[in-house]
């Protein structure tokens, strides 16, 4: 006579396997997310949308046969003919053992994340470099402030310690002594154990900072170059908006003349003229003089250009650049060169700036979409390398 048992253990036997798998997926998201930062669908979004990003599944590899092996199947009737094409559809996988490997196809997980989460994943550990406390401004600024814990939230805000404590509490309440558990039994985390940090908006006087976005919109800036520049600024913009609620941003676009523009125009407008990069820097310096005194403000200036400049403008450019580095926390110059390889000589402006060798000057180059994120990280400085 057979034995019958009602299974009664509370243990969830695959809980730890699933947790480990989730960690791997999360890691894949972190690693994969940088590849989508230069994706058209993201640039210029207003932040309300959700994104579905495909994350490559954690694949298990085995020796398997490729395409030139034959397989056998049953047909519906007698109407199958030799040489007949069955179309694009694979008739089905062959019968396999209980542990049969998977086919050659890629596995993708669609992960849905919000704009906010996307920014959290990207910028979790970044901050503006060299930010100093300047004379306090009168303005109270809004800032996210930690305020207790909640039982739901997004992954980056998961508080491990609190969660672990909640699990232990539950274990005590259930009267389970970890020493008494059988070797097969575990006391896994429950959904309710997970605690997330909660943030609340608090008013606080803030360190003042102004960021100058300087973009070359001259005729030599092709569609592709503009796209890369825009991706870069977009990333920067999202970052600043997430982390520094009240930061001031000044948009300057230039060809042979520079002008201060609205955010919308900055991202959309184009021009056909030549390039005098000095005009933009000189306008920046003017604005700093008039509105943002360095004793009260942290000043950052980021410039995107393809490096072409009228030769007679070069001296003026250096002069203005030197002036900026003397007052700013950071002057970041980003050269967009989509058509050349890394081996090619950098453009003129890149070389002109080199001798300045101020620790407030950082130069990066972007050749292709994949460079946008590393360039961004480089400009933001060493403190972020672990992001």
């Amino acid at each position: 006579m057979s034995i019958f048992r009602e299974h009664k253990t509370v243990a969830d036997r695959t809980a730890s396997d699933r947790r480990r798998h989730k960690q791997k997926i999360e890691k894949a998201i972190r690693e994969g997310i940088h590849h989508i930062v230069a994706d058209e669908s993201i640039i210029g979004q207003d932040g309300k949308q959700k994104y579905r990003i495909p994350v490559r599944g954690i694949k298990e590899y085995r020796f398997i046969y490729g395409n030139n092996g034959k397989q056998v199947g049953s047909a519906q009737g007698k109407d199958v003919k030799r040489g007949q094409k069955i179309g694009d559809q694979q008739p089905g996988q062959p019968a396999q053992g209980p542990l049969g490997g998977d086919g050659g196809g890629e596995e993708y997980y669609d992960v849905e994340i919000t704009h906010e989460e996307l920014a959290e994943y990207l910028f979790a550990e970044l901050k503006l470099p060299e930010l100093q406390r300047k004379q306090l401004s009168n303005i109270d600024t809004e800032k996210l402030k930690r305020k207790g814990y909640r039982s739901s939230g997004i992954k980056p805000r998961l508080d491990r310690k609190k969660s672990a404590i909640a699990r232990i509490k539950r274990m005590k309440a259930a009267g389970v002594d970890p020493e008494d558990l059988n070797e097969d039994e575990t006391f896994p985390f429950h959904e309710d154990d997970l605690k997330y940090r909660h943030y609340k908006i608090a008013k606080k006087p803030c360190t003042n900072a102004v960021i100058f976005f300087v973009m070359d919109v001259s005729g030599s800036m092709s569609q592709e170059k503009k796209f890369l520049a825009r991706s870069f600024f977009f990333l920067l913009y999202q970052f600043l908006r997430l982390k520094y609620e009240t930061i001031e941003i000044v948009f300057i676009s230039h060809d042979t003349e520079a002008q201060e523009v609205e955010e919308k125009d900055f991202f959309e407008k184009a021009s056909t003229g030549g390039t005098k990069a000095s005009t933009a820097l000189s306008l920046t310096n003017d604005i700093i003089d008039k509105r943002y005194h360095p004793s009260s403000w942290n000043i950052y200036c980021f410039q995107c250009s393809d490096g072409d400049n009228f030769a007679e403008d070069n001296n003026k450019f250096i002069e203005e650049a030197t002036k900026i580095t003397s007052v700013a926390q950071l002057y970041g110059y980003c050269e967009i060169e989509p058509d050349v390889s890394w081996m090619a000589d950098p453009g003129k402006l890149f070389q002109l700036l080199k001798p300045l060798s101020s620790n407030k000057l950082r130069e990066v180059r972007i050749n292709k979409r994949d460079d946008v994120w590393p360039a961004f990280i480089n400009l933001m400085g060493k403190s972020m390398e672990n992001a």
Partner: protein
Amino acid sequence: MDYKLEELKDWDERIIKLAKTHGLDPYPLDYEVIDYHEMIGAMVHHGMPSMYSHWSFGKSFEQTMNRYNLGAEGLPYELIINSDPSLAYLMRENPLYLQILIMAHCVGHSDFFKNNRMFKNTRPESVIQRLRAAKKRIQKYVEDPHIGIDLVERTLDACQALQFQTTKYGQVRRPHEEIKAEYIELINNDKDERYKNFNINMYPIEPDYDLLGFIEENADIADWKRDIIHICREEGQYFWPQIQTKIMNEGWASYWHYTLCHELDLPGELHLPIVKMHNAVVRPHIGSINPYHLGFYLFQKIKERHGIDECFLAREVCYDASFLRQYLAEEDCVELNLFSYSAKKKSSVTVDDVSDEKGWKEVKEDLIKNVSGGSIPVVYVDEMKRDGMLVVRHEHDGRDLELKHANEVVEHIKCLWNKQVKFYTIVEEEPWEID
């Protein structure tokens, strides 16, 4: 639950009694009644009550759960492992008629595990304890500050990739010296000079198909790593017979649930849904092979053609490839509408042969190539060089390897071997080397 545990026990008693009058000889059965969540957990652990921890089980849990929630996949009607006693799972949510069908089915499986010769070396009486001990040891390595989860996981990843690159019948590895002595004997008595150019100093002397075993024995690695390889190799050997007999095993179990349920004198309200379910289980899958269908069909035909004793003989001595080779006749290929196909280019699939007078033999051969684990490529250790470099070759049989996978698996071999590895295969009729 529309039944009581007592009812299951009554039906089980009748099923076992009836099975024994037919000459079936199963292990004692040990049923566990679990809910669907636990069922998926049990499934991804291959039914093992105790399994070491690895993320791949979590992945397959998520996938199964997703498909189940989408309605794309029903849960298995039965899950039984090759152990003594046979551990089988019944899903609490199943209606009574389904439990009866499953219990009758499990008796067939248990009889097969106990009596098919492929399972001789699987040590079913101790498999549960062995895996429990393995889990404990692996957990110990994970907690060891000198080893830790990342290294253990990396090793398990590699071992799982190579899990079935070991002996199929659980043979014990023969010592090198013993094989060498045999060859020296052969060379000494070599009258017709067949071994004239034989290099007795090769290591291994013969191609070694037990890749994991060879690595376990010869790699210059830490003990914990060797132990993990040992665990995974044993696991692979334990599962090989099931891969080799998938069609027969399911066919035999289906044959017996069908026969037993017919003879149980079931009331109509139980028998009718059983017949319906049976037909659903053994229906052909268009475009592929349903092992339940093919196995059930063939055991029925064997009984018709040669009598029930021949069926018992086949269940004892055959595995899928020999089973089909011996019993699948032309008229069967025709009746089952079997055809062979291949993907010439990435997406288009072409019919190569159909089961008519001219093509059935070819179709049968193609089928045999794909069963009994024939879809798992065969590789062997050719040589271990003086500097420790491992030379591994693929035994090419006309089917090329998927290179993307092969490249990754060679990385896994390197991870385990800890020294240089060279891998040779043939791609589009040209020699191909991965290192």
